[in-house]
């Protein structure tokens, strides 16, 4: 009914090649985009600064990681360090007077060139061993940043981000930073959507499924593994600088520790490996489930006058959050994006139950 399809039929090649072949999908995506663009006028500043901005930034980062993990099948446990390199490079450049537009790109390039060095490990090792190699990157980068006062910023180890502007718009208020984060997230999502239908994306998929089979088919594993690390680290570096400028506003080494890497990994896995929609759902769940559960516990405690000790009150949401993540992995191992896809498949031919695809 909504999709007006009983099975997908295309009569022209152009139709099939579109990003969103179905009219209803296009309508849906444009309405969500319109809502996001209108958000600063519809929502209180609290929702903008407390929810939407972090959601967009973390989603962008998870998208970059998903290119590597879901797209090329290479595990990365040091993505927080990749973002740190981008953040520190761009903030130092901005402080030296370089415009943000260039500093962001430079941050991305720096992350990419360091990320590819550690990515080179992927040429020799796989799976759990690659996880260890990237974990080493996390700790080495952490160590270098916090042990070099010139990078970390002296004995307080905090560097302030000076006021910046992007394409002539000053990024001071929440609305401006929100649009900036939305713009970057939009670009990255668009890129990720398109990667799937390029030769690059197909080569990555081949490498993901079986690297030596890909090599036999004529896909250069050497080239595409490094390229996957390069592109993903570049995105990570750019998002790192967005995170620093839009959200943190003062950077210190502890903001980019292993916790951030694990958080992003969880977003990608819970959201759905290899999906573009997945990181959006994954970031929302991982970032906001603890907040919402915390508020819910608080609400229940105050509404029913329960005298729960604060220690317990702080830990109940953690228990629920852990159960939630396990539950999602148990009931839908393919991630949150798959839940949406199930729903969509059902609605595709609704009210009928079955249709030829």
């Amino acid at each position, binding site marked *: 009914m909504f999709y007006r399809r009983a099975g997908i039929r295309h009569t022209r090649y152009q139709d099939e090649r579109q990003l969103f072949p179905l009219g209803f999908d296009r309508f849906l995506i444009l309405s969500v985009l319109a809502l996001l663009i209108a958000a600063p006028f519809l929502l*209180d*500043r*609290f929702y903008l*600064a*407390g*929810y939407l901005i*972090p959601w967009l930034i*973390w989603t962008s980062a998870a998208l970059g990681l998903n290119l590597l993990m879901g797209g090329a099948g290479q595990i990365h446990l040091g993505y927080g360090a990749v973002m740190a390199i981008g953040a520190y490079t761009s903030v130092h450049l901005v*402080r030296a007077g370089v415009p943000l537009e260039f500093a962001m790109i430079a941050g991305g390039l720096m992350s990419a060139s360091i990320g590819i060095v550690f990515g080179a490990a992927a040429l020799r090792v796989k799976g759990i061993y690659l996880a260890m190699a990237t974990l080493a990157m996390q700790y080495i980068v952490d160590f270098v940043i*916090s042990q070099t006062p010139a990078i*970390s910023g*002296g*004995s*307080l*180890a*905090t560097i*302030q981000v*000076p*006021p910046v502007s992007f394409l002539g718009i000053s990024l001071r208020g929440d609305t401006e930073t929100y649009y900036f984060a939305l713009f970057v997230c939009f670009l990255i999502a668009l890129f990720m959507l398109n990667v799937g239908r390029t030769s690059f994306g197909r080569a990555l998929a081949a490498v993901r499924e079986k690297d030596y089979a890909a090599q036999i088919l004529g896909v250069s594993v050497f080239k595409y593994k490094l390229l996957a690390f390069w592109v993903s680290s570049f995105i990570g570096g750019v998002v790192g600088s967005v995170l620093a400028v839009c*959200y*943190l*506003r*003062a950077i*210190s*080494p*502890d*903001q980019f520790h292993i*916790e951030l890497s694990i958080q992003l990994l969880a977003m990608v896995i819970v959201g759905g490996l290899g999906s573009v929609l997945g990181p959006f759902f994954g970031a929302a769940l991982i*970032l906001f*489930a*603890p*907040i*919402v*559960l*915390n*508020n*819910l516990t*608080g*609400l229940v405690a*105050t*509404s029913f006058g329960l005298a729960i*000790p*604060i*220690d317990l*009150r*702080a*830990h109940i*949401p*953690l228990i629920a959050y852990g159960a*939630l993540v396990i*539950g*999602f992995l148990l*009931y*839908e191992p393919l991630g949150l994006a798959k*839940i949406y896809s199930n729903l969509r498949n059902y609605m595709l031919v609704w009210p009928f139950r079955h249709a030829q695809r």
Partner: protein
Amino acid sequence: MAVNRRIFVSGTAATLAAPALIPSHAFGQDKVIRFTMAQDFTRIYTFVTSEYSQGQRDYFTLINERGGVNGHRIQADVADHANDLPRAIEAYERGKREGAVLCDPLSTPVARALVPRALEDKINLITAFSGRSDAADGSAFPYVLPLSINYWTQAGLIVDHFAKVAGGSLRGKKIVFVHIDTPFGKEPLPILQVLAQRQGFELVTFPYTPPGNDQAAIWPQVRRARPDFVMFWGAGVGQTVAMTEAIRNGLPMDRVSSSVWMSESDMEVVGKAAAKGVMKVEPCASGRDPKPIKDILAEVVAKGKGAGPEAKIGTAYYNYGVQMASLMVEGVRKAFEKSPNGPITGAWLNEGLRSISNFTAEGMLPPTTVTKEDHQGGGQGRISQWDGTKFVPITGWFTANQDVVWGEVKKYSEEFRRTGK
């Protein structure tokens, strides 16, 4: 009923959507001053926070039971931010929307991220024993208030006390500084280096890798260096491990001192008798003797309104909580003195907090005077020593080496002023 995928997904969606749908309780009382106390109960600070928060809430209950300040109740919204920035910023923004005029995150990373926001939104950010040490400079950070001695001052106090123990001069002595290898652990280094040069003692530093649960390689080296005095700088597990290793290596514990981060709970881990003699910096009196603690026991806990286990009352971190809460309440009192009719805003409370003068909370605190320039409150503390059962003060309230501390404060606050705006 077997849980299948559909039930799990729809059940979760309903639970997560519930808080948005249930209207939150609008509190009827208009005479309320709200503080946002989102702190880390679950990740790094854990038991420190729960004792600190218990002290704060008990003190607020005490004040509210007595009728509040000028008829206004103090409401502390306690939540857990787990040292996680998105959660902390959400809590801060929530507090701001609900009209909170003060925020106390008790976390260095969170305080760092909140500094630019608090300065912009004019919300008082309390950064006791956390956050940027240069926030002592009130002229650069009008809305960031440590209200307590920072780590630079603590290092200065310890060195000054060492000099007294050594008979007036540290010339030719050797001080070993064992610290966690993080920005927090390295923070006192510039102060110690200047003092070493000025007072002619030799400074030897030993960093250990975070989180510091294995320091076995460090302490034999400390022993071999034959130090006259030892300072150890860490937090959480690193502190107890450091003490255990110091005892194992036979260092004279009455020549060993720590920052404010040492409590009775640590002593239970180390062994109460073995740790005898070790010193720490006290920002306020510990134990149950100070008047505010006695009042809390009589007026709050006796009525069954205590916020947590009674055994924790009077422990070091509990008293830090009472110390900070009493300073906040004193700030509210001063703000009412200045402009009795409000309106109650961050700027209004800021005026009050920055005019606290010679406040001692009936003898519990060193005389604390906060001015528009000095947010540290005068930089007074004292050294106390573990006697096997409790911490006993061995000096009066004093301050020392503030010229060095302020040199460092100004260096960083100037830098912040230049680039932060």
